[in-house]
Structures are given as C-alpha cells and as structure tokens.
C-alpha cells in the first residue's frame, strides 16, 4: 500500500501509523455531554468501502494526514493534511470567527 504524503510524496505504508477513524467529532473541551464524549472516545465507523481515516507519517515528516481509503480494495482515494480539516468543534468555532 502506498500513501501519498503531501510533503514527502508516495511512500510505503510501513512509514505510517494508523491513528484511527477520521469521522470522530471531539466535543467542546468544557462539554459535559457524556454521550457525545462517549461517541468520540469509543464509537468507530467500520465501513466496507470508502473510509475517512487519520494516518501519521511517523517514519517521515510526522504530519497527520486525512486519508480516504477503500477498506475492501485498499485503494487510497485521497490524502490531505489533517491540520485544519478535522471535524473538531473547536476548529469550527475558530474557523467561523
């Protein structure tokens, strides 16, 4: 499997560390909504098909990437920096301000 790091180019998967489901939404830090926290900490999508994932180029530039990968064919459909693009309540608040 090859993942194309926006900095480093196409690199072997052995250089990357899987950092989990990229669809999780972190509640506001002060949120006391336990259901939302529970969903963020424990719920993971596990689709048979295209999956939005976070990978770290731990054996390279150490950037975190948002990778869309087909879990059946292992085809990498897209890669982008995770920075800024994460579905974080924090980010969205910041982004709109």
């Amino acid at each position: 499997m090859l993942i194309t790091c926006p900095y480093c180019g196409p690199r072997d998967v052995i250089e990357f560390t899987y950092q989990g489901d990229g669809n999780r939404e972190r509640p506001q830090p002060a949120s006391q909504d336990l259901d939302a926290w529970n969903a963020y900490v424990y719920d993971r999508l596990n689709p048979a098909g295209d999956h939005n994932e976070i990978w770290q180029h731990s054996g390279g530039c150490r950037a975190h990437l948002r990778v869309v990968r087909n879990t059946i064919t292992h085809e990498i459909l897209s890669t982008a920096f995770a920075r800024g693009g994460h579905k974080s309540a924090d980010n969205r608040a910041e982004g709109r301000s």
Partner: protein
Amino acid sequence: MSPRRTETGGRIDRLRTIRFTFDGAAYTGHAGDTLASALLASGVTLFGRSFKYHRPRGLLSAGVEEPNALVTVLRGEVREPNIPATMVEIYDGLVAVSQNRTPSLAWDIGAINQLGGKILSAGFYYKTFMGPVIGPLKGTRFWMFCEHFIRRAAGLGKAGTAPDPARYGRMNAFCDVLVVGSGPAGLMAAKAAADQGARVILADLEANLGGSANWSGETIDGMPAADWAQRMAAQLAGNDNVRLLPRTTVWGYYDGNTLAALERVTDHKEVAATGEPRQRYWAIRAGTVVLATGSFERPLVFPGNDRPGVMLAHAAERYANEYGVLPGQRIALFTNNDSAYRSAVALKKAGAAVVAIIDVRGDISNEMRRLTSDAGAELLAGHAVVATEGGKALTGLKVQRFDAMSGSLSGDERSIHADNLLMSGGWSPTIHLASQAGAKAEWDPARQAFLPPKPTQRWIGAGAFTGSFSTAEAIAEGRAAGLQAAGGAVSSGPLPVVEAAPGDPNPAPVFEIKAKGKSFVDFQHDVTAEDVRLAHREGFVSVEHLKRYTTLGMATDQGKNSNVPGLAIMAEALGKPIPEVGTTRFRPPYTAVSIGSLAAERFGDLKPERLTPMHDWHIANGARMYSAGLWYRPMIYGLPGETVEQAYVREARATRESAGIVDVSTLGKIAVQGPDAAEFLDRVYTNMFSTLAVGKARYGLMLREDGLAFDDGTTWRLGEQDFLMTTTTANAGKVMQHLEYFLDVIWPELKVTVTSVTDEWAGAAIGGPKARAILASCVTGTAVDNATLPFMGIVHGRIAGVPVMICRLSFSGEMAFEVYSGAGYGTRVWEALIEAGKPFGLVTYGLEALGTMRIEKGHVTGAEIDGRTTARDLHLDWMLSKKKPFIGSAMMDREGLIASDRLQLVGVVALDNRPLNGGGHIVEELDEANPHDSLGHITACCYSPALGKYIALALVKGGKARHGTRAFVSDPLRNRFGPVEIVSNHFYDPDGSRMHG
C-alpha cells in the same frame, strides 16, 4: 549415453557431464538438465510415494506444477524438503533424496495403506477421531494415541533441524513495466515496452527464458522457436533499461501494484560466488504488470492415472525437445483436445514409437488425422483409457469405447502395450497472480477453463494466460500489452511469423472416465474422484468446504493440476454448471517460499540499542546493566561478593545517609515551545502550567481521552514560551505522538511546536543529605543555596566548564537535584560530580536502588499507571484541576471510574519478614490449597533499608479504607503465602521534610 537420451536436440550440453546422487545412488546428467530430466534419462521411473496411500509415483509434469516427484535436497546438515525434481537444476555434488518412504522408495512399508483405501477415504480423521469418547477406539483420546504413527506415515518431506547457514538477500525494485513470464508473449511485451524507453523487469521462474518456445518445436521468423527466444533474450539483455530475472518466481501480487518475487540465486550452483546470497527476495513496485504466465495442462481423471509412466502430454514433449530425453519407447496418448496431437508428432520425431492416440471425441478433424498419421499412430476416436497396468513403471493400458456426451463406456476392453501414457485434459490459464490481485476468475465454456478476471489493478494479460493458446496470438497480444503498458501507440507493424501445427484450442468437456479403480484428482494429497463424490454425498456443497474436507488442492502444489477437474466432478455431482459451483480465490504464495528469504538480513535481535552518554563509564565502573525497553541502564554497581539485594540496599542506604547519583538520561524529554505553549500544557496536563513561573518546574499528570491515567513527569519552564517536558522512559514515544496528534488534528490553531530532545540532554540525579554540598563544591556561575535554588527551582551554571541546567526536584525523597548537560558532555559532567562527591561519600546507584527509594516514597511508575488506573486510584486527585477542562476531564468521573471498591494504591508490609513478589495477590483469608478471591496484586516490591522491612506497593480493592488492616499475600506460582499489613503508600518521610530540607 543412456538409452533414453536422444542423440541431438535440446538445450543440454552433451559434452559436459554432471555427477550427483539420488537416494544414495550415483547418477550422471548433463549441464542444463533438471534432476527430473537427468533421472528420467537414466531410466528412473519411480520418483516418490504418495501422501496417503504410499502409491508409487513418477513424473507427472516437467515444470513448477509437479505434484509427485518431490525431493529433499541436502546441503551439508541443511535439508530442504518438498522441492519438485523438475525445478532442481543439477550440479556436481548434488545430493537429493526421495520422500515419504520407509525404508526405501522401491520397498515401502507404508504401501500397505493401499489395501485400506476404503477406510482412508475423505474425512477419515474427522470420522474416526472427533466426537465423544465411546469405547477405546474413538474420539480425541484415541487420536492422541494414534497421532504419532499417523504423522509418521502420512506426509511429505521432513524439515531439518540444523540452523540454515545460508545468507538471503532482499531487494526493492521499481519499474514502469514488470513482465511476468518469458514465453513468446512475455518476450514480445518486454521488447515492445523496452523499445518505448520504459524501465522493464522481465521475470521467469525457469532458468532459461523462452517458456514454451524452448520446447514447442515451432518456427518463428524462419528459425527454431528456441533460437528466436534466445535471440530476443540476448537483445533484451543488451538494453540498459531492462533487467532480466531468470530463476525468479513472482509469487505474490499485493496492493498498489507491489509484487513479491523469489530469485534462486545460487541453488543451482555447487559453490556460490563471493557475496552471492542463496536466494533473494524482491519487492517490486511496478507501474504496470504484464501477466504472461502461460497455462497448465490438465490431467484426465481415470483409473490408474497416477501410475509411474503416466504423464502430461506437453511434459513428454518438453523432455524430448528441451532436454533430449524420451520418457518412453512405446508411447500412447489420451486426450480430449487437439494439443496432444502435436506432442505425438514431436515424440515421433524425437525417436519414440507412438502406438495410439486415444481421443474421447468421436469426431476428429482432418488436420488431426493427418498429424496422427505423421506420428505413425493408430487413432482410437471415441475411446477412453479405463485402466493402466504395471507396478513401478507402466507396462500397458486398457481402452474401451466411450461416448463423450453421456460419459458411458461400451464394448470390450482392449489392451495396449505401452511404457508411457501421455494425457491431456485441456489447458488452464495460470491466473494465480490475477486472482491474488483481487478479482474473481470467469469460466469460459468454450475453453472449459477459468479465464483471468477484469483487472482491478494495473495489469494487462497476454498469451495463454488470457486463453489465447497459439503462439501467433501470444506474440500479437504480447506486443500490444507491452506497448500499452509503456504508454506507446498501438502498432500495426509486421509481427514475427509463426509456423506451428494447427489445432482447435477448445477441448471436449470431459474431465473424468468413470470406471472401476482409483482415479486421482489431486495427486499430491491422494484425493480421488470418489472422495469428491463422497464429500458431496455427506453434504458438502460449497467448494470451500469441499476443499477443506477432502484437502483437494491444499498440498504444496496448491492444486495447480487438480482444481478444475475437482470442480468439474463436484459440479457434476451437484448437477450444476461449473461457474455456479465457483472457484476458490488464489492466495500468495504461488509456490513455496523459504522463510529465510522473507527474513533476509532481518534476523536475530532486531531491536536497536539505546545507550546513555555515560554508558561506557557505567560498564567500566562495574555496573551490571539490564534492558529497560530499548535502553540499557545500570541495575546495580555491585561490589565483589555482593548479592543484588545487598548491593541495592547498600546503595539506597548510602544515598539516604550521605548522597547518591543515578543516570536519568533515559527520561523522555520534549521541548514544548511557542506563544501558546502554556495554554497547550494546561489542556494536556490535569494541573495548571500557565501559572508556573519562569525558572520553576512542576510535576504534571496526563490522562488519556477516556479519563484513565496516561503518564507523569516534571515540566520545566525555561522561558515565557519555552518549556522542557519530561516523560517516563517507557512512554516517551507515546507521549510525543499524543502531543503531535492534538496539535495537528484537534487544535491546529495553537501556535506550538513539540520537538523530541531526549537524546540531546544527559541527565544525572544527585540526592541525599550531602547532595547540596557536593554541588556547591563543583558548580560555578550560580549559587545552589535554598534561596537561589528552592524546591522546584531551576538555575543555570557550569560544572567542569560545561554549561549545565540544574533543577531541584526529588524522586528519591531526599534533597535532590537533576543536572542536565549537552549529551556530548554527559560523561565529563558525571565524572566531575563523582570526583566532587568523593569527600562526601557519594555513591553511584542503579535502577534497583532507584526503585527501592521510590517504593519507600510511594511514587508511581508504569507498574501502577498500567492503563487501568485513574488519578484517584493512585491518590493523585489533588492534581486534577477544577479550573479548566483538560484531556480526560470529561470522562474521568464516570460512575465506574469513581467507585469506592476500585483497585487503589496501597503500601504492603510483610509481617513474616520474607521477600514479596511482584504479581503476588493480596487476599483476605489464606487458603493455600484453594486460592481465590483476590483483592488485588503487588506492583513493585523491595527490601526497604529505611524501614528494615520487606515492603511492596499494591493495587488493592478499596485500598484506602484498608490502611492498618491485616491481609495475606497469596502467590501459589511461587509458593509464597504469608501475612501482610496494608498501609499508606507513603512509607517513608510522608511529609517530605527531607527533600524540602
């Protein structure tokens, strides 16, 4: 020359004689021979004993698919079993032995199993050995009794026990076009792609490039096909952008057009050249793959089809044309298709008598009739072979009239005298790699074969692989595939002209002749047609179940010959067409792969060693080291005659009485810098860091997102925007990744960078009542008195001229300081401290004493922060800020995490004055015979010189409420039982008066 060797022809060098042994007997062959061709030329017909019934077996094929003639090759003490004799190139001194026979191939005691054929049918093991124990002869217990004998009687070659001294290599290769298979299609593809300027790799599992051109006897561009192939290969070899890999089996097709291949570099040599590995593993990343892997001829299934002397038709043709060996003098052929007629003519030309061509089809074309007369053979159309005769070699066969439509036999049996029976049951494209690449094969009713699927990765098929069995088609498809793979335009230029025997590529849909006797489908695993039908009768309908129940296709050849006939028989039993029965997906590896090649240079201890800057000093000064993760750290600095316990007790006692020094360079160190560094630390740690003054340090605790404790350590504020975080040795990497994740993914708006600086700093912790006096005597540029360097204060100065950073913090509980210097100067500073400490009785101490003093103080480490404990469990709830949210704050107060009966950190004192063990359980009542109801377990233990007792830390249910109560340690594995008292984890100096000084 041997009687079976032809006078001329083939690629062998008749002037060069090679000597080797097989089963201890000396043989000769010629350069270019395989073990199979050399033995066949020497008159050997018996090559092996079958897996289950120990039936005598000869050569079935001439290539990689060989199921019968498996041998073990010995090199010194090293034995490699289960290699097809067809794939062993002979060399002077080769030692090969046959397999699965006792005491010899000719006299095999296991052959008695043939008499028990009815009992040893499919599912024998399940039926005999599974289920409840009823009497002595059934069930699992009976299996355990019989297993030894059965394992000895059944099976293939024996693996050796000697370590393999051979070296294996590994190569990563990149190319625009990888061509797999070097027959006419592969050669054309490689040439076309290379001419376009593409970087090309051409791999073939055989020693000689050319594939079928080496034995087809056809003519290409007016020259013998074998010569044409040689010329093509020579041209390719002259191209800088082409790499030829003969003897290289591409065995795996993985994601992203990554392919795995095994190159047998020196297996064919008597002595390897300097630096040559035995085998080389290739990881090839290809832009496009051209699959030109050819096809396999299928056997026909009929009684006695496994007798030595019964062989695939093309294999005999190959032995004659490529190796100059006649597999028999009187040859009969049995076929369901046209290709065998060409084989008949070739064998006649090579000098054999072709007595008959038996064809299941009643209607034979005029072209085939002409080939029959060219071969001088009698044509028996509409006939089938119903029996073979002979023991260790074929003597004859019996035929009957056969109706291909109904499969019925009629008329009288007729005997034919022959010493070689060649069969052809049609051809199956070698689609293994395409199947591995991810798609399902498609059944073609005309070819009666599975054709490759539509590509799901970047590959293009060519030649027999696609079901185009003629050389002219292979050449055209090969060139087109090569051009397409290299991005070139379609060419209409002239193609090499092929002169070949005619033939219809479509066989008659006949796979089996049903007559009395054992008809083998899977030769290597001894699976018969009747076994397949038995599986059907017993309810196995899925092809996957059929495979597992009968073990069809599960031997080392992975069913290269047997898959399609097996499926066809199953389909007939089910009354369904073959495509509805389905086929199994091929998985890597295509052929057996040595474990050595997969490991290549990566064997032995693969962990990198991390050594602190003072490592050599520790060794030179008598430290006994042990490994902590990847690090090596001093355990004790033992004096002559001291036990480990005596050494650490002395070191800890001396530290508390005067002073001790320990290497703490292994602590994880992360520079956290930037305008938002303080804010970031507030979010990461449970306690506040934004309030920390510059020049001060603070102990911090991190939780995971789920609210459990993660890591602890001190963080030093070196400047307004500059922090130095320390982590535990074990968690340094994990904490770094944790911080990076939050900065990159969750809070990208924070202006913070984190940098691992673990290896940049050498650290020494010096503690004890005399520690300050020692520092005062050697530090220049700063005072170290209480006013200048208060508890958790930081100063900068010099030791032996080296700039150092000193923080007054304590893990040992004594007045203590951590001294950091640049890693390159670590030993110099360390030696200066040792020197300065001499008048004060300074000792060096190792991890054992460090652990002892931390247990006495009740500090936690990874043994207590074990991924299951919370801050409250460890009595660190005073660190949980209520003024701000932090990672884990929302989840840490969940019901289950605040329950009062959770395991909590306590101290334990042995009341019987005997050592405790880590992992020992704490129980309320002692029942040595029946240990139960654990309250918790011991996490760390030592003899405490400060208390004069054996003590431990433990995680105990509702531990805090049990302080002052009695319990017992129960450790049945080490037979340690005894009374203990549960106390606070703060054994020693609980108010910290010693470190505050």
